[in-house]
């Protein structure tokens, strides 16, 4: 049947089924009476009976509908449900709810339609003034890709006996469903290259209050008495104390290049595009560092220009980070210079650039960061099989091979500035490079005067 979501009718209206039974039955019965043919009356009997039955059981009141989307924010691959509580009026026999699925969203049951029959006795009990439990319909909503999408519109339709009369609710406005990037498992044991905060889990380059042993040194004024190492003190004859390394947090800046989205995205169950990899990697890194007590700042360069989420810590900040990531849209803003925000970057922070490294803007920004002396690490998010994704067109593969050769040359230019580039492969992707950066940070450096 045709579904008109734009306009619902507030009253019960007769359907073509009722017209068929009533008009067809009456016309055939009249012809039978006029021509005196009882066989035609027999043919008209079922239609007349159904028409009379339908007219006598026509609902008089309109149903009451309440709807609710259970969750406003879910992760990729998770599902929520759209619940419709329908209080049927007497005479209502079947209720149906349906919704329209946006891209990258699956609805269950098939087509987003949820149908159920209403017990006639239950519908009648309301006429006695007693409340009844509503008929509850649920449409499952599963989001297979991160992003902000509106689910719906939706509507509810009720029908009477023999589908003779129908009532359709007004269209329910679409509901915004925020799908944050999936939780990619990520863990790292590598130390942070330059922890500069006050408290945290990373070993500082300085000695101070902490738990990790550094050395044993002579007692100085101000040292805590519990730090005195009595065995050594008795052996050497003077007071000796245990020195420890200070523990600090670090300031991590995630710079996500959302200018290009390369490759087809199959959602959480299929192949990943470059922006999928970037979003999921950024989410995993943010979760890893934030749950480790570090501060994370997020910068997204996409069609909106530069979106900056100031540094913060804790679980709530993780939700903010994921929320901003879910709002990414590929594209570039005309005249936007991504280097404009470099001046506000913190000294000593760890800057992680997540980019497929195919846009000039991202390369320029990375080189600018390296020249400014920031500890920068580039995470390559270009899918490895991007050149083989269109086997039917050999020219695409050739074009991609040429482009990838150019990209390698551009990546070497970045690496010559001391910026390591590492491909994102999940847990432990950055460990080796971060250890190298830590060693480099601890080494003596020649400064310009």
């Amino acid at each position, binding site marked *: 049947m045709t579904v008109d979501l734009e306009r619902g009718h507030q009253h019960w209206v007769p359907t073509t089924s009722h017209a068929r039974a009533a008009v067809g039955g009456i016309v055939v019965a009249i*012809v039978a009476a006029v021509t005196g043919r009882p066989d035609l009356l027999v043919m008209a009997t079922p239609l007349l009976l159904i028409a*009379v039955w339908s007219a006598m059981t026509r609902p008089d009141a309109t149903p009451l509908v309440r709807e609710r989307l259970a969750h406003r924010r879910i992760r990729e691959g998770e599902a929520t449900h759209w619940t419709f509580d329908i209080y049927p009026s007497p005479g209502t026999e079947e209720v149906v709810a349906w919704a329209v699925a946006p891209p990258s969203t699956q609805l269950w049951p098939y087509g987003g339609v949820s149908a159920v029959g209403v017990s006639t006795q239950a519908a009648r009990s309301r006429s006695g003034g007693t409340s009844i439990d509503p008929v509850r319909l649920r449409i499952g909503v599963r989001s297979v890709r991160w992003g902000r999408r509106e689910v719906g519109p939706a509507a509810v339709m009720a029908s009477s006996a023999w589908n003779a009369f129908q009532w359709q609710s007004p269209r329910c406005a679409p509901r915004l469903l925020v799908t944050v990037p999936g939780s990619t498992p990520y863990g790292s044991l590598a130390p942070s290259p330059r922890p500069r905060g006050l408290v945290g889990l990373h070993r500082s380059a300085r000695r101070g209050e902490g738990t990790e042993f550094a050395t044993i040194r002579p007692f100085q004024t101000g040292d805590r008495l519990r730090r005195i190492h009595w065995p050594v003190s008795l052996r050497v004859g003077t007071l000796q104390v245990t020195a420890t390394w200070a523990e600090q947090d670090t300031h991590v800046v995630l710079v996500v290049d959302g200018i290009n989205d390369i490759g087809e995205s199959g959602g959480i169950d299929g192949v990943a595009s470059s922006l999928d990899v970037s979003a999921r990697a950024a989410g995993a890194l943010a979760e890893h560092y934030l749950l480790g007590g570090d501060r994370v700042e997020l910068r997204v360069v996409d069609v909106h220009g530069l979106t900056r989420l100031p540094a913060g810590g804790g679980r709530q900040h993780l939700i903010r980070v994921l929320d901003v990531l879910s709002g990414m849209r590929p594209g570039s803003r005309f005249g936007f210079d991504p280097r404009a925000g470099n001046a506000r970057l913190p000294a000593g922070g760890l800057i992680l650039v997540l980019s497929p490294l195919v846009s000039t803007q991202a390369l320029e920004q990375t080189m600018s960061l390296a020249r400014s002396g920031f500890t920068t690490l580039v995470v390559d998010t270009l899918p490895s099989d991007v050149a083989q994704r269109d086997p039917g067109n050999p020219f695409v593969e050739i074009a991609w091979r040429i482009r990838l050769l150019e990209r390698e040359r551009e990546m070497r230019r970045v690496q010559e500035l001391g910026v390591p580039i590492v491909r994102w492969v999940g847990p432990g992707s950055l460990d080796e490079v971060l250890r190298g950066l830590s060693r480099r940070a601890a080494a003596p450096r020649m400064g310009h005067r």
Partner: protein
Amino acid sequence: MTETLRPGGTGSDFDLPEYGVPDDEILVLTFGRIRLSTCVAPAVVVGCGVLAAGTVPTIRSATLILLIAVLTVAVTVRPDSYAGLLLVLTTAAYWAVTVPDRFSAYVLPAALSVLVLHTSLAASTTSPVDRPTDAVRRRWRRRTLAIGAVTVTVWLATRAFHAAARPAGIVLPFAGFAFLAVVAWFVRTRSKPLGPLPTPVWEERPVVGRAIDDLSLFT
């Protein structure tokens, strides 16, 4: 292949079983049965007419058969259109033109076929897709059988009048209408007066922007 989805959030009792494939199968089966009934019922009426007439269809009957075929295709494609009404009227006209015997026994399967045709069309338009639940299917089947039983009773009444050699041509229609009036009265008296219900109101909720909520999702 099926998979069980994990709903978002905690403490939810909602589980989505068997995503995808089984629904497709149900849809195809249900769709096929209802459409098959829609196609077969007019063919049964035509066949009964040919058997009742006992002769080769005339040009007038053949024209009506052709029209029935066209309308059958139309209602199969669009069951919610008025082509169904035209199909019922055309079927009755075909019977009146083709069958001269007013008390033919073949009228009973023909009338039951009309009932099946109407029921299948009505059932297929209760939902945007043909996906009735088992309870709904049982309800429709039970009611169709009840209407069919009454139809058989009316047919038996016509046969009884015919056997008694009564002038049934005038009496029967009025008797039938009187019977329908009794049925209508019976149905009406079973319906209790309805109290007023509130007007339908959607539960409005604010549009979510970049606000942070649902913290439990990540705990």
